[in-house]
């Protein structure tokens, strides 16, 4: 009874500010020059799209995994602190957010440049004889994206970990499980919903990344979002741009469904605890 009331504001908001604009753009894309299927035809025939699409998926996947790997232990640490102190640690993780993504990306350029800090240190330490190229490499893109998305991973994980009953892990230890076994068989499975939520969020966000790949990766490491922007701004071709947006949307939906299928969620499917 209450449920429809609870979602009503969301549906109203999305109807006006998301669905209708989205339909508007689709309408335009299908009524563009070259007929309703011009966009689709371009997608099918363009090798450019295929290559960039695969690159984008790969990038999103690696960034997601790196963020989870780096973020999980950090989240464990925060969740293990007394509740009164967690706020401080979370705030530390969130500090970078106060700086615009644009600015953070530019500062990476100063670090990674040929005469940047990293190269200077490498040469000073004798690890390199001449400046290495770090800018406009996959490394630069990954660094920039991980720096931006890592707080998202940590925050999402902490949100779930702090609600766990620490008694369960302790019980396992008391009953003689090694720390590793207690972690692997009790703690990790309990945090699964958090991992799934974080993975999904990270993957989705990485798919749509725009500024960081453009500034740190350059045109040789374009993502779909960069290509859409190129279509709209340089090529004046909204038809293909909307077609690509649709493909991106479909990909994400497939990814979300796949993840839900791989890691079934107890509550959503009505399973009892």
């Amino acid at each position, binding site marked *: 009874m209450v449920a429809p009331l609870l979602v009503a504001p969301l549906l109203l908001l999305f109807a006006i500010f998301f669905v209708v604009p989205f339909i508007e753009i689709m309408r335009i894309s299908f009524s563009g020059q070259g007929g309703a299927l011009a966009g689709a035809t371009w997608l099918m025939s363009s*090798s*450019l799209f295929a290559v960039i699409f695969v690159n984008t998926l790969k990038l999103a996947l690696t960034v997601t995994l790196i963020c989870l790997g780096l973020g999980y232990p950090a989240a464990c640490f925060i969740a293990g602190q007394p509740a009164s102190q967690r706020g401080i640690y979370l705030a530390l993780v969130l500090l970078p957010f106060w700086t615009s993504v644009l600015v953070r990306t530019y500062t990476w350029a*100063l670090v990674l440049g040929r005469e940047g800090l990293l190269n200077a240190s490498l040469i000073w330490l004798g690890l390199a004889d001449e400046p290495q190229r770090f800018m406009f490499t996959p490394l630069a893109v990954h660094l920039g994206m991980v720096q931006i998305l890592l707080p998202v991973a940590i925050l999402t994980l902490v949100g779930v970990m702090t609600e766990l009953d620490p008694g369960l892990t302790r019980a396992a230890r008391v009953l003689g499980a090694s720390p590793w076994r207690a972690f692997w068989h009790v703690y990790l499975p309990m945090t699964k919903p958090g991992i799934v939520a974080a993975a999904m969020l990270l993957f989705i966000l990485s798919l749509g990344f725009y500024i960081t790949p453009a500034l740190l990766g350059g045109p040789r490491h374009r993502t779909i979002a960069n290509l859409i922007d190129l279509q709209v701004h340089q090529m*004046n071709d909204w038809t293909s741009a909307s077609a690509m947006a649709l493909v991106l949307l479909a990909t994400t939906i497939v990814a979300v469904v796949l993840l839900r299928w791989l890691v079934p969620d107890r509550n959503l499917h009505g399973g009892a605890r």
Partner: protein
Amino acid sequence: MTNMTRRDMGRLALGGAALAAMGKSAHAQAVTITVNGSGGSLAKSLERIYEKPFTAETGIGVRSTAPVSLPKLKAMVETGNMEWDLTEMGGADMIEAIKNGWLTEIDWSIVDPDNKLPPIARQKYGMVTSTFSTVIAYRTDKFGGKAPKSWADFWDVKSFPGPRALQDSPVQNLEFALLADGVPADKLYPLDVERAFKKLDQIKGNVAAWWTTGAQQVQLLVDGEAVMGTVWNGRVPPLKKEGKPVDIIWNGGALQLSYWAVPKGAKHPREAMLYMKSRLDPDKGAQLLQDSPYPGFAPGLIEKVNPELAKTLPIHPDNVAVQYRFDPDYWSEHRQKLTERWAAWLLT
């Protein structure tokens, strides 16, 4: 009905804000025009030099918006809700807009009644507001005292070793490649695309960075990411003054024009054109040049500028002589196909 009220209320609020901003010198403002430009740090100079005096003189308020965007213009024309009364536009965008019928004809009896502008600045749908050049910039400390002189030197990585930077766009880069390959500046168009890409293949491995924003161009040089690259002419002089080891060469630069245009459906075209007229004042133009070395063709402007500064302007006769004239017509027609080819070429 509700629509009307909302619009009226919006106007009222806008007027109120403008009045509040004007403080005590509140003029009875009949109209406020919306002028769309590139914004940023230049907006303040423009306000001081042109907009405030214009309002004081005519009673017409000026509200400036940014940035210049062709997709936005297209969307505004197609929905029949034109926010801008006047907008800045690049050459190729201009032609695209004319082709699609997004602009209003300029009434030259308002803007330039005495016919003082040179014909190049007086076009059917636009007035040249400024000129700028894409030129080679290089690090003066990297070649042992030698200085590159031409596009051939840009391609010559043996005599001038080090990474290069180019814009991420086929526009102009194809021309530069052809110039490097020995095509004379007046025989560039129509471009020999195959030959240009073949020449670009030679330099591709040495291009460390493909820039996309104006902020990047010099940043790349200063960071040492590239020792030679393309920049807009106005970016380098302030850095040179600061003592940074950078300089530009005019030879083989791309001389380009940007325009003022009145979009179709603009609500106050007459007032917008009056404002265009005010932009032709040579004294004010000379003031603006202090902050932004991109001169227009305001009659008498060059005479007002000190010779030292004049030498750094794209339209100084010495500089014009060595540059080529960029052809926006060609690019308006071929940009879409060539951009796609360019993007694919970069991936291989």
